[in-house]
């Protein structure tokens, strides 16, 4: 597993509140990038399944031009997600390592590519309109995750 700078967070730190806080901080450092991608309205859960019946969930909130981390989600109904991307831990780590190694997701490791066949990742939603928001904001989401491929992205 590759890592970034010696004092930086790495893929090994995923998933954690610190990891999500850091990619959100990177987004806030580059408001012009996200502003050019346009407004969004999306409450997304990143679900990491680590063992049968055991999952950790982290919330991301896209609101206008703002992107915020909602931290680890314990009360899912209270967070009221539009959609959830769920995958085993190893699939998330493979995606992140690929982004890190290539400076951005390659052909087979974009969020859309990994979710299209519903294996290894799935986008689920109680309401298909919530699921369609994933498509409406896919470039923003990909830019957010691709930011870990930027050399300074996860530096403290």
């Amino acid at each position, binding site marked *: 597993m590759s890592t970034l700078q010696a004092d930086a967070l790495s893929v090994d730190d995923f998933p954690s509140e610190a990891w999500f806080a850091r990619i959100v901080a990177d987004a806030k450092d580059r408001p012009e990038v996200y502003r050019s991608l346009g*407004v969004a*309205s999306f409450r997304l859960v990143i679900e990491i399944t680590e063992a049968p019946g055991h999952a950790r969930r982290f919330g991301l909130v896209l609101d*206008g031009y703002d992107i915020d981390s909602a931290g680890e989600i314990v009360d899912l109904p209270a967070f009221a997600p539009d959609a959830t991307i769920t995958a085993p831990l190893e699939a998330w780590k493979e995606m992140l390592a690929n982004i890190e190694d290539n400076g951005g997701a390659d052909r087979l490791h*974009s969020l859309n590519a990994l979710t*299209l*066949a519903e294996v290894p990742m799935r986008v689920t939603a109680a309401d298909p309109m919530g699921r369609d*928001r994933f498509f409406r904001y*896919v*470039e923003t989401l*990909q830019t957010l995750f691709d930011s870990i491929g930027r050399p300074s992205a996860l530096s403290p």
Partner: protein
Amino acid sequence: MVNGSVDLDYYERAKGGKFDLDWMRSVRSEWGIRAKPSKTGLTLRDIAVSSYGMVPDHAPRRTMAPRGCDVRDDVPDMGYTLNDKAEVWSDNLMELYEEAVSRQWSATRDIPWSELPELDPDLEHAMCQFATFLSEVEMVASDFPAKWLWRINHDFVEAKMFLCTQIMDEARHTEVFRKRALAGGGGLGQASPVAERFLKLVLDAQSYDEGSALMHLLAEGLVLSVFRAGELLAPSPVEKRIFRLCMQDEARHVAYGTMHLRYRLEEDPSLAEDFHAYLDQGEDIIAVLFTTPAIVEPAAILAAGSLKAAEETGLVASDIVRTRVVEEYLDRCDRAGLPRRERMRLPAAMLAGTSAGVSEDGGAGSIAASQVV
């Protein structure tokens, strides 16, 4: 001044500073309503306040007067034919319009054309045929709303504005796929008679209801799934970005179509059978698309990475896309209040792996694809 006649007496008085000021003194619209910007600026939702935000179920007149203004009796009738809110409305219109305006992109500036690699000739052929098909079908989603736009009452201006963004979006999609076909040296491929029969069905629709169901829900839902597949199959970062950006636009159009149909059916549930009949017709042609070589084979070659590999794997990738197309479409139909799981008309072989019901005679649809060709 009455009915546009030239009032030279008024002109002389005004030259001398004797103004009429009726427009200021006796205007009957609301004064003192101050719309306040929200966090992204002053949005359509922000200005939907007081009487200005009240969209009538039936437009009281057929003029271009901005909703909420003081309308004089001698404003001419524009002859609008869509004068009921339910005919065009959806509850997400304002959000979608703002999003569309904010998320515009340029096929000239925002695609990294200089990074387009030289592809294997078979891959370039496949990509160019794919781009030809998309450049061919996308413009209908400009033509259809444009055909109906002037018939929509101005009281539903938010719907008209959203459709204008769709027209621009689809022009850009036509542009970007035409550019992709020409940028790699392969050029444009074959036009598709089957696809154009579907486009004609949309354009010839006898009502906005019919055309919108066929286009916003069925066709754009299909194309959204095709864009998703295109992003996966993209041979280079150039196509990857094209498909992602197009996907975002298309998802807005589908979101409008789904929620418009829902609104329409909530207002008049008796229309459900009409909508089923429209979609029956559309699905019959879509079934043929799934067996059209110029549409299926380019995707298979792009997915496999070469013609030789595709000949070994067949339609594995296309089948994944077909399954997603069907499932996502059926989910949207459910959301719109028009469940079609037991009614979908694709042949049973094309519904394998989906949740659509298959009748005992072996066909989910009552018409075989071959009957439509």
